C-alpha cells in the first residue's frame, strides 16, 4: 500500500469517527470534536487528492572532468543542470509559449555568441537584449533574470559553460566550448569568459 493510500485510509477513518460521534453522542463538546474531525479529515483528503510533489534539494551534479571527453558530453551535463540545479526551466521555455514568464530560448545558441550568453547569465543587467521580432513594443516579462553564478542558484564556471554547450547543441549549432577550457580542481581557475566589449549598460536590438 502506498503512503498516499495509507494516509487516505487514516483520513477516512477520522471522518468516519466524526460521523459516528455526531450520530450517536448527544453531548455538545464531543459532537463539536466529531465535527472538527470531519472537517480536518476532509481537508486532508482534499490535500491528498492533488498531485503530491515534494521539493527536493537540487542534486549536486558531480562535475567529474575526467568523464567529459567531448563537447557532446558537456552538453549532456548542461541539459541536466538546465532542468535541475540551474532552475532555468522554471521561467524559460524551449519553444514558443504565450504565457511564458521569460524569453523563449529556442534557437538562442544560434543567435547569441557564447560570450554574450555567459555575460547574460552572470551579469544579466549589463547588456539588455530587446527582441523586436514581435509587433509593436518589445515584449515585457514579469520576471527579472537573476545572476546565475550567485546564490541561491550559484552555478560554477564549469556548470555555466556546460549550460551554454547545451543551448548551442539544442539550437543546432556546433558546440564552441572545448572540454579543455574547463577548470580543473586544484588548479588556478581560468579567466572568465570575456563578454562583448561594451559599456556598463547598453541595449542591443535584433532587427
Amino acid at each position, binding site marked *: 500500500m502506498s*503512503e*498516499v493510500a495509507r*494516509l487516505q485510509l*487514516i483520513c477516512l477513518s477520522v471522518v468516519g469517527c466524526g460521523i459516528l460521534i455526531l450520530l450517536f453522542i448527544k453531548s*455538545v*463538546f464531543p*459532537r*463539536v470534536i466529531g*465535527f*472538527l474531525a470531519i*472537517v*480536518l*479529515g476532509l*481537508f*486532508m483528503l*482534499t*490535500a*491528498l487528492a*492533488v*498531485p*503530491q*510533489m*515534494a*521539493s*527536493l*534539494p*537540487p542534486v549536486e551534479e558531480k562535475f567529474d572532468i575526467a568523464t567529459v571527453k567531448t563537447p557532446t558530453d558537456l552538453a549532456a551535463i548542461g541539459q541536466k543542470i538546465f532542468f535541475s540545479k540551474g*532552475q532555468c526551466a*522554471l*521561467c524559460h*521555455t524551449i519553444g514558443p*509559449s504565450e*504565457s511564458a*514568464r521569460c524569453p523563449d530560448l529556442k534557437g538562442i545558441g544560434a543567435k547569441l555568441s557564447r560570450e554574450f550568453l555567459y555575460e547574460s547569465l552572470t551579469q544579466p543587467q549589463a547588456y539588455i537584449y530587446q527582441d523586436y521580432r514581435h509587433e509593436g513594443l518589445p*515584449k*515585457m*516579462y*514579469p*520576471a*527579472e533574470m*537573476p545572476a546565475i553564478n*550567485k*546564490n*541561491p*542558484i550559484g552555478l560554477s564556471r564549469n556548470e555555466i559553460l556546460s549550460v551554454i554547450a547545451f543551448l548551442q547543441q539544442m539550437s543546432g549549432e556546433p558546440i564552441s566550448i572545448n572540454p579543455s577550457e574547463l577548470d580543473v580542481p586544484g588548479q588556478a581557475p581560468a579567466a572568465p569568459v570575456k563578454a562583448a566589449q561594451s559599456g556598463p549598460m547598453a541595449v542591443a536590438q535584433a532587427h
Partner: protein
Amino acid sequence: MQQDQGGWIQRLLRSSSEHGGALLGLVIAAGLLGLPALVFGADVAPAAPTEYRDIPYVGSRNVIWVIAQLHLLLAGFVLGVPMFAWVCEVVAWRGGEKRYDKLAKEFTKLLTSAYSTTALFGGILLFLLIAFYPKLMNYLTDIFFPSFIVYCILFLVETATLYLYWYGWDAMQYGGKKTFHIFLGFMLNFFAFFIMIIPNSWATFQSSPVVIAEGTDLARAWAATWNPTWWPVNIHRIIANVVLGGYICGAYAGIRYLSAKTPEERDHYDWMGYVGNFIGVFGLLALPFAGYWLMREIYQYNQQMGITLMGGFLSWLFILQAMLIGVLFLGSNYYFWLGITYRIPGSALKYRRPMLAMLVVLLLCLAVWMTPHSLVASLEEAAKMGGSHHPLLGVLGVMSAKMTVSNLMILVTFMSFIMYWRAGKQDTAGWAKVAKAIMGAILVLAGIAVIILGVWGYFVPAIIRINYFSTSQVLIVIGVMLTITPLTALLLKSAKTTTEMVWGKMPPRAGYSLVLNAVMVILLMTLMGYARSSSRVHWHVYGVVRDTSQYAFSPALGYASGIMALCTFFFCMIVAFIFWVATMGDKAKVATTSPSKGELPHGMPAMAGASSALDKPEERKF
C-alpha cells in the same frame, strides 16, 4: 574489573527475577529515556561543531514544525484577543452598553492563562531550536542579539501592563480611572504589536535576507530587521490576528450557544457569536489586500521565490488556500444570512432572492479562484492538455481572473453585512432615497469596474496588470467600503426600528458554522506557515545559509496537511482548555449563588455579559 562488571550484571538479573518485571521495566524505561541522549551523543563530532541534532522516529523537523506552529497560533490568539477586548471596552465606554465591557473583561481574563501557555510554547521552541539547529541559531544570534534584548524588555513591560489591565479592571471602572484603563488597554496592544514584529524580523530575514554591511551590532541587527518582507508580514499578521481573535470568540460562543440551558444563555451567546463573526469578517475583508502586498513584495525581492510559491511545486497549495478562504467567505456570509432569517422576523422573505443571488455569485467566484493554472505538469500531462496550460481552464486560472473574483467576493460579503445592518429598520431621513441610490450606484459601478479591469488585464503586459490594474481593483473595493459604511451609519442614525432583533433563536447549524469559520482560519494559518517555510526551499536563510540536514526538503501537500490538521486539532484543544480553566471559577460562583429552581440566574455562567436585556434591569421588572 571485568569480574566486577559481570557480577553487577548478574546481581541485576537476579534482582530482576526476584522483583518480577518491575526493575527490568525501570531499566528499559531508563534506556528508552536515554535514547535521545545516545542519538545526540552519536551526532557529536569532536572535530567540528555540531550542526544538527535529531530525535528518532518523530524527526526533529516535525517536532519543531508542530511546536512552532502551535506557538504561532497561540501568539496570534493572545495578540488578537487584546485588540478584540480593547475595541469592545471602547465601544462600551463610548456607547454605554455594559455588556460589551463585560465581554471585554471575560476575554481579558483568558489572557493570563493564554499568555503563559504561549510563553511556555515559546520557551520549548527556543530550547528545541538551540538543540536541533545550533548552527542556524548561532548565525541568527550573531545578527539579531540586540533585538533579543529589546524583545525581553518588551515582554517585561507587556506582562506588567497586562497585570495592571486585568487586575485593575473593577477598580478602574469610572471617571478618569476608566480613561486610564482604556489607555492601559491601548498600551497593552501597543507593546504586543512590537512583541509581534520583532520575531517577524527574524523569520522574514530567513526568507528575504539583505546584505549586512560592517558596523555596530545594533546597525547590523537593524539592517537585517528592515528586510523587504518585514512590513508586509507585520501588516498581514496583525490583520490575521484580529480575524483569528474574532472567529475564535465566535466559535466559543457557538459551542456555548449549542450547550445553553436557559433562554438568557442562548441570548447572550447568540449575541457573542454575532460580535465575534462581525470582528472576524471585518478583518477578513482587509486580509486579501495585505496578502496581495506581501506576495508582490516577494516577487519584487526574488522572482524565483515568487514563482516557486505561485507556479512551482507550491502552486497546488494556493488552490487549497482558495478552497479554505472560499469556505470561510461562504461560512461568514451564511451566518449573516441565518441572522437575517432568524433574528429579524419577517426579513427572510424580503431578502431571500438577494441572498440566493449572492450565494450563486460566491460559488461562481470560488470556482474561478480554485481553477488551477500554472502547475508543474509532466511531459505526458502537458501533451494531454495540449500545452503547459489547460486550453479551457487556463483562461480562468490566471491571476487576472483570480484577482477579479477575490475582489468580487469581498464586495459580496460587504453587501451581506450592509444588508444585515439595515434589516428591520426603516429610513426616516429626507435624503434617504438619494443616499440609497448613490450607494446602489457605487456598488454596481464598482462591480463593473472590477470586472472590466479583470478582463482588460488579459490584454496588457503582466507588469502593467500587477502594478496598475490589480492595485486599482483593490483601491476601488476599499473605496466602496469607505464610502458606503459611513453613509449607512448616518442613514441608520435616524432610522426607525420596525422589527426588534430577537436573540437566541438561531438554529444549531449557526453554532457549527461559527466553529467551521474558526477552523478554516486556523487551517489557513497552518497552510500558509508551511508555504512560507517551503518557499525558502533548501535554505535556512535564503541564498545564504543552506540546509544541509536530512530534512532539507519540503514534504508533499498530503503529508504536510496531516501535520497541519494535527496542529489545528492540538490548538483547538489547548484553546478549549484555556477557556475551561478561565471560566471554571465563574461556574463555581454561579453554582454557589444560584437561586432556587425555577428562578432566573442573577448572572450569566461562564462568560458574563448576559443579554442586552440584562443591561436594563428596570425593564425586566415589568
